[in-house]
């Protein structure tokens, strides 16, 4: 039996021909990290490759590996018997998809990706490959994103409603990527007022700013004057802050959450958010399907998320597809 070019291992993917792992969750000696989110980027590898624009956020998150190489998008590097090239994934600043050319053929591996426009990072770039390894976070057709402009309009309207009622507008979003995308979209919509940030968002937002991403002025909420009631002010916080004592400083606030999951009403109601804003850094169903054909792949493998429906749907279209569970390998290995 011939081993495929990539196999699930260590919570990520292992390439024997090049002796490297992509997004491993356990310590390995050589890794390619697609982007800095915690479910993809872990410290522990001595030799690390990543896309150059992602270096500041990555080192902020995992520290400085012994041997760290930042690759330009499109710049190739020889690893073992393979040639590896990173392409923009459009997911967050510095995110990449990985093209691996080897004797067994050409594989494309997405960490996470999206096709919707995002002012904070380079747009996804498709390329032909034999096998496309696709994330599948939102693998059902109910996940279809409205245009970001429309959603930014909803956020602004909600903020001005809050202003009229003298309430703080607390907007929950992931601290890396989403928060900066929202800020940048707000700047593009003409927002010049300062926005308050939760502490977890400060250094990451600074990384983005230093790389030239345009955002409104930001201030840490903890540095507000004593007695500040944040009436009519916009506050950005990570979802983990919801329900924490930190929130006590925003009396009578209205809570919004920016996420693809907000497409489903039950998800929002269950978490008790007043408003859900459907904006995701992942591909929606139509873009997952479209990207498979843009990559011209004859085989698709889904990772991250429940790929069963996408696999069956692609099968119906005559594309060979299967779902891999990377987490499983982590558990087996550690058991």
């Amino acid at each position, binding site marked *: 039996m011939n081993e495929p070019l990539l196999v699930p291992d260590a919570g990520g993917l292992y390439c024997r021909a090049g002796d490297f792992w992509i997004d491993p969750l356990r310590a390995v000696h050589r890794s390619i990290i697609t982007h800095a989110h915690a479910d993809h980027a872990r410290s522990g590898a001595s030799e690390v490759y990543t896309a150059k624009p992602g270096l500041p956020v990555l080192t902020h998150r995992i520290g400085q590996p012994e041997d760290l190489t930042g690759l330009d998008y499109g710049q190739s590097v020889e690893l073992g018997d393979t040639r590896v090239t990173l392409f923009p994934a459009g997911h967050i600043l510095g995110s990449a998809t990985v093209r691996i050319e080897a004797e067994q053929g050409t594989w494309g591996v997405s960490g996470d990706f999206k096709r919707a426009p995002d002012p904070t990072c380079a747009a996804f770039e498709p390329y032909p490959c034999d096998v496309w390894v696709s994330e599948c976070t939102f693998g059902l057709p109910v996940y279809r994103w409205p245009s970001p402009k429309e959603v930014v309009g909803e956020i602004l309207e909600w903020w001005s409603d809050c202003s009229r009622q003298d309430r703080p507008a607390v907007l929950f979003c992931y601290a890396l990527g989403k928060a900066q995308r929202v800020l940048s979209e707000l700047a593009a919509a003409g927002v010049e007022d300062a926005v308050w940030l939760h502490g977890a968002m400060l250094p990451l937002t600074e990384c983005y700013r230093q790389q030239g991403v345009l955002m409104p002025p930001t201030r840490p909420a903890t540095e507000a004057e004593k007695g500040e009631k944040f009436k009519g002010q916009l506050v950005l916080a990570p979802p983990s802050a919801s329900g924490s004592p930190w929130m006590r400083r925003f009396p009578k606030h*209205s809570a919004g959450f920016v996420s693809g999951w907000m497409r*489903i009403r039950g998800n929002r*109601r*269950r978490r*008790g958010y007043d408003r859900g804003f459907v904006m995701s850094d992942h591909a929606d169903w139509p873009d997952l399907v479209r990207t498979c054909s843009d990559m011209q792949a004859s085989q698709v493998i889904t990772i991250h998320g429940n790929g069963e429906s996408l696999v069956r749907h692609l099968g119906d279209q005559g594309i060979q597809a299967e779902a891999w569970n990377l987490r499983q390998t982590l558990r087996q290995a550690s058991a």
Partner: protein
Amino acid sequence: MKDFAALFDRLDRTTGTNAKLSALADYFRQARPEDAAWAVYFLTGRRLKRLVNTRELREWTAEASGLALWLIEESYEHVGDLAETMHLLLPPASAEPPTETLAELIESTIKPLAQMDDDARKQRVQQLWGQFDGSERFLINKLLTGGFRVGVSKRLVTRALAEVAGVDSSLIAHRLMGKWTPDADLYQRLIADETDLDFEQSTPYPFFLASPLEAEPESLGEPDAWQAEWKWDGIRAQLIRRDGQTWIWSRGEERMDGRFPELEAASESLPDGTVLDGEIMAWRDDRPLPFSLLQTRIGRKKPGKVTLEKAPVALLAYDCLEFDGEDLRDRPLEQRMETLNRALSTASAPIQPSQIVAFDSWGQLPAQRDRSRELGVEGLMLKRLDSCYQVGRKRGAWWKWKVEPYTFDGVLIYAQPGHGRRSNLFTDYTFAVHHDGELVPVAKAYSGLTQKEIDRLDRWIRSNTKERFGPVRSVEPIHVFELAFEGIAPSPRHKSGIAMRFPRIHRWREDLRIEDADSLDDLKRLLRDPDAA
């Protein structure tokens, strides 16, 4: 439709009661009466008779979205709400939405669907989908599928109407009872001044509900201000005798005409203008029969002779809301009890008084409550003697002091996603006990875990699924839960041979292994001796 959708958005975008209340009041103030009537109809939980079956709706959604039918099913399983699933899958609307109001849309388009042939109905529904989008389309789908829970309680609607009408909310609650047709006239009557009101003869009074007593009865103050009664485990009912006619209403505001012919016959002995509140019980030889026998009566619209003989019923009356045509709800309980006795003095079996439990000091009550299982009751009711008959669940005057439930330790073996708020989360669980070296399912439970526990269990279920049968997943039998239930009865329909009343999760017993779970024999012992636990 636009205004109604805007109301829905306002309600949906807040979790605060006051914000919801003012959204409702604002809507009622500006809406045309016929639209307001329909809004009240849906928001208080009434529904249209099903106009389109859900299989058709799924097929039409598949067709309109260009997706395979199985993908519609998988999406529905994930979202947990068919109306919402259809809305999310359908392509964006291509036409301008018509300006029809809620009432116009229902009268001109939704209701006529029932009379159309299949092709015309499909065409009309798909046309609606092409015209409306956003919350409007979601709500139209809700109308088509019947269900309408949008995070507003009937009580809240009642309060908003009371505010708009400037009358007491208990009067609105009364006006909302019973059968009515949503139209302009109805709405005018709903918000009319106190004086110019005429009720239908059949209209019941809103029920007054007891709250669970969490502290000891001593906390209620002087015992001689209180009356104790047995808490019956039957169907709460209101019997109305007016103008030589009888109506029987359940607490769910369903008319139970014809279901209990023995009660209707006995009610003829009551004086006109009498309304009784009580419990319908399966009853023989002065004591309750198991609830499972009463269940054989609930479903039957016209019970036959055999059923009537096997499961005879009685109305145990414990309150008198009207006598001689006079509304007595403002009188103290003590006086109403006297009137009740007077009303029942001419009554014939099986309409009879519920029993009062005599006591002088709080210290005597626990021993009485301990007899509950033996007597086939759920515990005691404690009612303030000077209390008037209020509307809905108001704390303070009526308490239910139930016996501790039975409990057992079961193993989680199946899970399935919930609906609505709990869609997309595994929240419906099946539990099993040991029998002959196997695990036999005995109970399904939906409630009792905290949101944190639900989330954790959900993640565990997703990564420990053994097999999938449609929406149901079988999981590794590892986790043990303590479940509480109210009663147990033999059931030939269940593999285990038993059926439990109201099982729910008490605790996640992470300290127990599956060997520690109970056996079917442990549970069957309770069938023979209800006090064996």
